[in-house]
């Protein structure tokens, strides 16, 4: 029986929600196509994640442990994944698309001489192939692609599937891993963490994003206040991450992150295709812009034509009233 292996990236002591989304979809495909579903965790302390993986349907959870993995270096992770794929005998390998996996996917595919489909919006298994839809041309159209090979790798955009539980009793399978010290030539000097609301942008149910219309710290503070009230995260357009008003990690779009929250506020954002590429799958989009012809209104569920500096304070007060009730 062919096997689908889902690699579950972890951060801050949790499996990423986007990884559980991929695991949930892989479980559906496994039962539809008669495949074995297994999961993989690579971490300095992987065993704590076995229970969660089992809750989402993975009976076998391969674990690879090494303190090296704390360092965010690609070489040891590529080695660990390559050896886990070979040892498990997986035919299909699926993982969420995020900076940490974009970092390793190409090299991993080349080392395995595998087929690979990066950053897909949906995927299915057809025989020995993966067939997927990928947004291309700055996410203006979908490209249908098919990849085959002894192994096929796929990475999936966050929010493409719902994470749904289907508990099984899980057992860990510890894989031995000897990093090849000679091949680890890079050295991590430091990680510059960005302070945020603490809510992970790609996992937030509400995202409040600012663009060039947000002129100053006072403006940004209003967005942060609204996000905090709604337990959401703050996003931004490239114009204001470039200017330094918003942190680089907040950038949403083609170069930045892809988000698909239940509610997205685009505040003082014009709606360039490169920004829309990262947020057009949001369920409800609210746009606040003083230019009635701004392209963002073509995507907005609710568009408010007006000055954000007049609208935001009133909006914040109204949301406060609801939250207090």
């Amino acid at each position, binding site marked *: 029986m062919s096997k689908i292996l889902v690699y579950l990236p972890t951060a801050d002591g949790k499996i990423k929600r986007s990884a559980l989304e991929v695991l949930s979809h892989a479980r559906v495909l496994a039962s539809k196509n008669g495949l074995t579903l297994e999961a993989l965790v690579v971490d300095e302390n992987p065993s704590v994640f076995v229970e969660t993986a089992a809750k989402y349907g993975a009976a076998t959870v391969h674990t690879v442990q090494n303190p090296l993995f704390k360092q965010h270096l690609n070489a040891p992770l590529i080695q660990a994944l390559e050896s886990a794929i070979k040892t498990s005998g997986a035919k299909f390998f699926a993982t969420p698309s995020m*900076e940490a996996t974009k970092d390793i996917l190409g*090299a991993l*595919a080349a080392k395995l001489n595998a087929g690979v489909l990066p950053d897909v919006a949906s995927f299915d298994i057809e025989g020995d192939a993966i067939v997927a839809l990928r947004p291309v041309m700055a996410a203006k159209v979908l490209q249908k692609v098919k990849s085959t090979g002894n192994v096929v790798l796929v990475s999936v955009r966050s929010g493409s599937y719902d994470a749904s539980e289907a508990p099984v009793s899980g057992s860990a399978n510890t894989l031995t891993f000897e990093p090849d010290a000679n091949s680890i030539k890079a050295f991590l000097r430091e990680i510059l963490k960005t302070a945020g609301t603490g809510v992970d942008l790609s996992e937030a149910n509400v995202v409040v994003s600012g663009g060039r219309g947000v002129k100053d710290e006072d403006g940004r503070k209003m967005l942060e206040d609204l996000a905090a009230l709604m337990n959401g995260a703050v996003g931004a357009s490239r114009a204001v991450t470039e200017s330094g008003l918003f942190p680089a990690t907040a950038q949403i779009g083609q170069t930045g992150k892809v988000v698909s929250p239940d509610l997205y506020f685009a505040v003082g954002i014009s709606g360039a295709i490169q920004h829309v590429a990262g947020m057009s799958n949001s369920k409800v989009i609210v746009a606040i812009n003083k230019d009635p012809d701004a392209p963002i209104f073509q995507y907005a569920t609710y568009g408010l034509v*007006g000055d954000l500096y*007049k609208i935001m304070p009133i909006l914040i007060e109204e949301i406060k009233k609801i939250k207090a009730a």
Partner: protein
Amino acid sequence: MKFSVCIKQVPDVTAPIQIKEGQLHQDADRLVLDAYSASAVEESLVLTEKHGGNVEVVSVGPEKAKETIRKALAMGAESAVHISTDDNASYDSLSYAKILAAYYKNHSFDVIAVGKQSQDTDAGLTGGMLAALLDLPFATNAVGLEADPSANKIIVKRQGDSGQEMIELPMPCIVTCSNDMNDPRIPSLKGIMASKKKPVDTKTLSDLGLDAASLQADMKTQVLGFQSLPQREPGKKFEGDATELVGTLMNALQNEAKVL
């Protein structure tokens, strides 16, 4: 320092596009230098201006890719290599990486800079694939780059998921560049004139010991077609004074969209 920059010619993603019978049609055949490639060229120029050395650009593509190569030369790169492919040939990322690897096997360099993805496909695979094929250390999604030639290393500031990572790499190595790294210079008139005299070394696949048929036979990924995005329900646009607007929005979010 010797920088070699892989650059890609891409269709202008802002030009109107249509899908007819599953195929993509661009109204205007507008081809441009990929923005991420342009940032890789820019950063290489900045570092050689600072530390000495030179910048070469390498592009795989049909004859018309030469226009894009000229653009990079006009920005300031000294020389170019054009690995020419048939007009209608299209390859997957791994094939392009194999072609580039075949070139680099016989050429020396300190840093290969490439775009972290390209504007048309956003795949972001080629840099990492090339690193694996050449067995070189690499870092992706660079938003800053510094060099320390005397210590034979570069320091990459990479944008990670929740912060920035400062990574030291020994040379030779590969860096994939974000357009958040810099604003690529616009070629000056002088640069454009000079570019016409700069050397472009054209190589065929067979010069590199490769052939199109076997590359094609080894391809693992096929494009089956194109389709439109799922249509969003048309939205509503409101005008009025701020208090009115917020009232309307609150009502819609609570009673219609039910997201509050």
